[in-house]
């Protein structure tokens, strides 16, 4: 006997399978579109030369360098603060109310749209502090953006370290700091690394926060100090895709830029996954 409820289940499950593979399809479509078009543009020269002819020709070297500067700058700012904050929350804090409060604040900060960070960075760093449109202002803005990610991943990594390790270390007469430094941190390190790498991915792709804090449409030379403006890959893609001097003519450059951007982000994601798996395997032995 064939029952309607079994048929219903069959149909529903088929639809869900279709949807899931549809999502896979969307990913393949997006990546395929960018890789297919980008690979035809990409060359050593494209990566290492300056834009030419109103950005319809030439390469994207300054944008790549700018993004690297921004990644480094924001990490210098966010990583120590984020990690220390997480260490305090998970290793020291005894006041649960304070911990809850911090956690709520961290979650809220994470939910603020990136354009709001852009506004804030502009008001505080660019104008109030007088940094002007600069790598410094942009890095600080991006740094603030990723602090919640750093805190959260570090906290999770620390929490995953079994309590018995800590107790064992205390039992040997180690102080709290020694325990954290010699026992807890080394075990949590791979997971913390994964979190940091993921935030590098986030920083290299963000556009809205740098629009008004650092990004330059075109610069004839590389930034010389942290008070200079910089070009950046995501902003570069935005500009040449929407408001270049000749949008059609600069399309290949846009594909190339998108390709480089996507490659960075994908590499970072894969790297993070690889590190996590590698250490998981090592720890399980």
């Amino acid at each position, binding site marked *: 006997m064939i029952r309607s409820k079994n048929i219903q289940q069959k149909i529903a499950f088929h639809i869900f399978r279709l949807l899931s593979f549809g999502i896979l399809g969307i990913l393949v479509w997006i990546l395929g*579109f960018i890789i297919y078009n980008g690979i035809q543009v990409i060359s050593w020269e494209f990566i290492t030369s300056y834009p030419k002819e109103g950005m319809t020709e030439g390469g994207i070297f300054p944008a790549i360098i700018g993004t690297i500067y921004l990644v480094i700058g924001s990490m210098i700012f966010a990583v120590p603060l984020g990690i220390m904050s997480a260490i305090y929350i998970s290793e020291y804090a005894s006041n649960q109310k304070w911990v809850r409060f911090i956690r709520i604040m961290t979650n809220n900060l994470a939910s603020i749209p*990136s354009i709001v960070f852009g506004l804030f960075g502009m008001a505080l760093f660019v104008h109030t502090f007088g940094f002007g449109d600069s790598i410094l202002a942009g890095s600080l803005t991006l740094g603030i953006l990723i602090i919640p990610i750093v805190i959260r991943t570090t906290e999770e990594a620390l929490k995953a370290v079994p309590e018995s390790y800590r107790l064992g270390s205390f039992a040997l007469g180690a102080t709290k700091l020694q325990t954290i430094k010699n026992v807890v941190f080394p075990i949590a390190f791979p997971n913390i690394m994964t979190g940091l790498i993921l935030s590098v991915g986030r920083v290299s792709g963000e556009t809205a926060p740098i629009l008004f804090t650092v990004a330059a449409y075109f610069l004839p030379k590389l930034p010389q100090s942290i008070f200079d403006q910089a070009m950046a890959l995501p902003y570069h893609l935005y500009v040449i895709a929407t408001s270049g001097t000749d949008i059609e003519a600069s399309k290949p450059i846009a594909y190339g830029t*998108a390709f480089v951007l996507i490659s960075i982000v994908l590499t970072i994601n894969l790297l993070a996954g690889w590190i996590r798996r590698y250490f998981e395997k090592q720890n399980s032995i």
Partner: protein
Amino acid sequence: MRFPMKIVERLLEGVFKMSSSITSIVILLIIIFLFKEGFGLFRSPVVENGYGLYINSKNPIADINPTQIKQIFDGEIDNWKTIGGNEESIYLFRFDEIFSIYTDEELGENYQFLPQKLNNIIAENSNIIAFFPKKYMQEISSNTKEIATKNIEITDFVLGKEWLPTTTPSPLFGIVPLVLGTLLVSFLAILIALPLGLGVAIYLSEIASNRVRGIIRPAIELLAGIPSVVYGFFGLVIIVPIVQKVGNISAGETAFTGSLILAIMALPTIISISEDAIRNTPLALRESSYALGATQWQTIYKIVIPYASSGISAAIILGIGRAIGETMAVLMVTGNGAVIPHSIFESVRTIPATIAAELGEAPIGGTHYQALFLLGCVLFLFTLILSIVSELISKKQTSKTA
């Protein structure tokens, strides 16, 4: 030997504790700076800075609001009666017209006669409305009176139906079209993403084999990692033309296009949170359902989904929050027409897209700049509220499980 060690420990603990307050400090600073810049708008005059609107003092009109000013200068209102004055056609007079009436000689070498001439013109025409720089109107004759001297009001901002930040004499900062545009695009995006995401979450948590799961999960993670500007670019080059062709419309940059892109971007959030919620349904509930002869699908939609509903709602709200705040992708594919949308196949402009598109051109400290910061405040409040609501909901879920 031990003594300095102790000091170091204490010191570091203090440093750690201080850094743990960083997020709270940042949020506080964001509130202070956004609101400080934004609320300056309500201390700015309705009429463009440095300019004034003048009428003949016999004209009974006491005041007019920004929308009326705009309509008068657009010629949509051409009689004083429309806004409660005498039955008299409106005589619009812009400052530069003075130079076609008087010669340079008559105005004087340093324009020293200009203020007097301006006053004369107003005195001679009872139906005039004149838009002059304030610096020439320092002494106002008894025949002249200035109107629209008030500051921009909160209601102009919150209830205003037009966003025309650069029109003269008085720009309009009505956020209604922007709010509607933002909500339309975001809700439509979630409407598209929710059934999709839920289906995928069910597939991954209930049906898929480990191997398939091992392929699709990383794919979704990758999808979450793609920068929004790349989504925008993809949307612009691929989705926009498709929407244009399929919808048979003149421009493919529509609210719908933005929603499609946003839906893809919201999927990873919705999928992973819903999947967690589904997974957290107790095995005992499922088994009881199977034991009563229910199929797996019946168990899913009658037991698991209702049980996971608060987790799923949290996912929806979080997804809406993300969608509302998303900037670049939306900016690139929605066409950015700042008018109240009537259909999903029209161009719309969202709040974040407005900020991104206009802040670069707004003079620092001017009303436009302040209005954009105020938009930032609105956005901040929107997402803050949504994040709090979603937290409350997921807390309810945890207490139910406990």
